[in-house]
């Protein structure tokens, strides 16, 4: 009989602690969590690229275009090998892709955005994840309003957002490779 109050006291304390914990637990913002996950995936890609770049011919200022081209192609080949199973959705998971679509929805309808997205867009061309961006095609200009709505990419890392048709592409401009894309990001 003497033990009962102790058990009750422990039980009540636990209940109080758990109630307090429930109150104090930081609210998880699902949008922020998705953006954090996106950042982690991008960082992971950059780690992989840096590893692939290790020992590769350097991209440096030169008058020799062949040297620039060779450095770019070698890096691209190494990344392709390191990500041999890469596919759409590796970075833009379905949840992250949905989040991106929400982010660009309104800015893509702003004055000027539609025109820019249409004019410079290479249109419905064939491209693949982990492959070179098609050589002859222009790179669509990204409307500043859309760019401002998207999560910032790491600075000086040569990653850019671009549009190909309705798809939002994550482009590695150093290797000129398509890293991943959000299908039908704009309507």
């Amino acid at each position: 009989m003497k033990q009962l109050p102790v058990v009750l006291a422990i039980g009540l304390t636990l209940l109080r602690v758990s109630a307090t914990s429930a109150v104090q637990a930081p609210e998880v913002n699902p949008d922020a969590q998705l953006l954090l996950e996106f950042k982690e995936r991008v960082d992971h890609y950059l780690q992989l690229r840096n590893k692939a770049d290790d020992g590769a011919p350097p991209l440096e200022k030169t008058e020799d275009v062949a040297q620039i081209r060779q450095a770019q192609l070698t890096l691209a080949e190494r990344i392709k090998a390191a990500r041999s199973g890469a596919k759409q959705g590796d970075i833009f998971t379905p949840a992250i892709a949905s989040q991106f679509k929400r982010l660009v929805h309104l800015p893509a309808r702003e004055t000027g955005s539609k025109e820019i997205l249409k004019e410079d867009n290479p249109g419905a061309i064939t491209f693949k994840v982990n492959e070179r961006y098609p050589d002859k095609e222009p790179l669509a200009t990204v409307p500043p309003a859309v760019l401002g709505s998207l999560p910032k990419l790491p600075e000086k890392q040569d990653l850019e957002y671009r549009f190909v048709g309705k798809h939002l592409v994550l482009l590695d401009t150093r290797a000129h490779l398509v890293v991943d894309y959000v299908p039908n990001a704009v309507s």
Partner: protein
Amino acid sequence: MPSRHVSRCASLLALVVAIATLGAQDITLPAKPDSLKFAVIGDSGTGSSAQYRVAEMLFKARATFPYEFVIMMGDNLYGRETPKDFERKFELPYKPLLDANVKFYASLGNHDEANQRYYKLFNMNGEKYYTFKPRDGVRFFALDSNYMDQAQLDWLEKELAASGSDWKIAFFHHPLYSSGGRHGSDLQLRERLEPMFLKHGVDVVFSGHEHFYERVKPQKAIYYFVSGGAGKLREGDVRPNSELTAKGFDTGYHFMLLELEKDVMHFEAVSDQGKSVDSGSLPRFSDAEKKKLAGL
């Protein structure tokens, strides 16, 4: 027979001389010894005969107007960018200028790969946007208008603020003001760049993208030129009766020649036939005038 032969030779020689001096004849710029002289080409990199024709005229113009460097408005190479393409679309057409140590400063257009920044002859110093000061009192800002993110805007703000009382000349691919039927003014870019240009007193802005020549009426004390016809041409694309246009030329290819003195800029647009299509002198607005006209 010999006299007829001599006469034919003389005629041929006269023709060769006429062709050789073509392009130099129409240039009306003062070409003062101490001024800063430069040229502008835009949307040049097609490798077409038109590009070569413009390049030839550009070279010939240097005989009477010895410009030091050329700024490029982007679309420096259309299509593929292999070493052969660099040769055909840049190194060969401009070889006489490159041989004469004329420097080219490129900005990126929507047809250009970012790795052009590593190509030494484009003098981009490995950066997609950069600044250079060819001499005291003048500073150029080359921007990447394809991708105007916050990092670039922050950089520009910092660089403009540090440029003091220099002539400030910005150049990039997409025009903030244009009467082009195909593209027209880039309003979103304008929304972001113009306030900064006004705040820091940018004097002149050059752009391409539109395949014609347009001198825009001064906008809030800034002079705007569209010069995107050094390799491409979109005939009849300058909207007639546009309120923006001070002068338009969309019936031929062209390049521009510029001459800066302390407080005045002389300009001339020259066609691929060596004819002057627009020229004049523009006074530099004082800080007070800039503020007044900009409504600051």
